[in-house]
């Protein structure tokens, strides 16, 4: 039985546009802004946010990809995947980095990303933009820009699908056992 969409494609588009405006407002312009998408779905998010900003600010902003596979601890929610890809970052030293990811959950993946970013150079500041915040933080980490807050249970599975990575577009929550079945 198909789950009801928490976010439709239109919801996602509007959230991204809103986030883009918030970022520019919060940073008082686009100076030194660099977007870093966390592999995998953080990447199209970063690209879309940067593109949205370009539309109303008429500035091209650098976008990079970050793979945190080599920085995870065993408790990272993404599991112990062996697959790692090269990262590809523009220069971050002295920049205002906006880290982008699809879902913020325990915070461990973001912590790994912070470790990685700092290894690449010393940003002036790092901000976090996520499409969905599902709660249950295990570390003192918060997102600066959030598309939607979705309260979940621990056993729930939050499914984000984006056209660039999945061919379709939605945000759904599959509850507990159903999540197991669909996995």
């Amino acid at each position, binding site marked *: 039985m198909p789950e009801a969409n928490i976010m439709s494609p239109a919801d996602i588009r509007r959230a991204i546009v809103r986030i883009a405006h918030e970022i520019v407002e919060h940073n008082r312009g686009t100076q030194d802004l660099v977007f870093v998408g966390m592999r995998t779905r953080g990447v199209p998010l970063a690209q879309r946010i940067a593109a949205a900003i370009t539309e109303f600010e008429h500035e091209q902003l650098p976008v990079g990809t970050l*793979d945190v*596979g*080599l*920085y995870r601890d*065993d408790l990272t929610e993404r599991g*112990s*995947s*062996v*697959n*790692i*890809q*090269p*990262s*590809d970052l523009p220069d971050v030293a002295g920049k205002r980095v906006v880290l982008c990811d699809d879902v913020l959950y325990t915070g461990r993946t973001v912590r790994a990303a912070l*470790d*990685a970013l700092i*290894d*690449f*150079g010393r940003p002036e500041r790092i901000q976090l933009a996520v499409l969905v915040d599902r709660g249950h933080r295990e570390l003192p980490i918060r997102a600066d820009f959030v598309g939607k807050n979705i309260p979940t249970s621990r056993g729930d599975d939050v499914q984000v699908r984006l056209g660039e990575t999945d061919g379709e577009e939605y945000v759904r929550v599959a509850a507990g056992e159903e999540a197991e079945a669909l996995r």
Partner: protein
Amino acid sequence: MTIRAPQPRPTDAPAPLTTSDADESAWQRRHLLDLDDVSVDELDLVLQTADTMKEVLSREVPRVPALRGTTIMTLFYENSTRTRASFELAGKVLGADVINVSASASSVSKGESLIDTVKTLQAVGADVIVLRHNRSGAPYLAARHARCSIINAGDGLHAHPTQALLDLLTIRSRIGDVRGKRVVIVGDVLHSRVARSNLWSLTALGADVTVCAPRTLVPVGLEHAPEGTLPPVRVEIDLDRAIVGADVVMALRMQHERMQGGFVPGVREYSRLYQINAARLARAKPGALVLHPGPMNEGVEISHEVAHGLQSHVEEQVTNGVAVRMAVLWLITRTLSRGGRLPAGSAL
């Protein structure tokens, strides 16, 4: 270490092989002993991972915490500055603790057996032992008695899997997919564990491999081995015939001992018949890749002219070596932490 001849870089150089995600369940090994049973999926995964490791090595600060808390010990019964340094660096870049144990300096020289040495190192805390030994099969013995992982850094005449992986990385980054490509391995295959491991990995990926050497240096049974027993390769005694149309030429070092051992009459005759020189290279495909596992004997298996051309790519090869070893360490330690399963039927 592999050294490559300079080739004009084509403007549309083959893309690095990270376009598709390799099957991450492909690697299930707790040990890396040889490439004789390696699958195409495993090779893809290793090479893709090595590409990522190359990116790490290109950073200002090439350090990641991936293997923090992991202890790697290199146990070398044969001297080797290059391979040992490569493994040590690979471990350290990944944040592991690396300890080098030299067999001659340790209790081994007092007669401690290989098994006891491995168990001692394990008890001291080794998670991974990188073993180089002068006896074929030593890593298999170690693996049978070890709870930790064993990586073979060269055993006797038998295998040198990480070296072959690094050769493969080099070949694929220069000429792309090796399927159907003509690879000619020239020289003392009989005594070259690097060549033997290369035979397995290249044939697994569908390369057309020819071994070219005097009969005395072709391993017995290689030519007409029963199916599934040895890598399926061609054997050609005449180098001028073998090298025609080759995409890759790998020259093996001709050691002095072989001349004393009666395998070949001497340098003069050997170099006349088997040296990779410019004239012979002209019969290979234009732009053919020349590899040599090093160190080179200029004037013997390779002419000064061709060897000189290879020098400029030493650094890239060193990086490839570290990257491949980082990839292997990463894949093996992930398997350990997942309670990795062992290949079916394996006693290891």
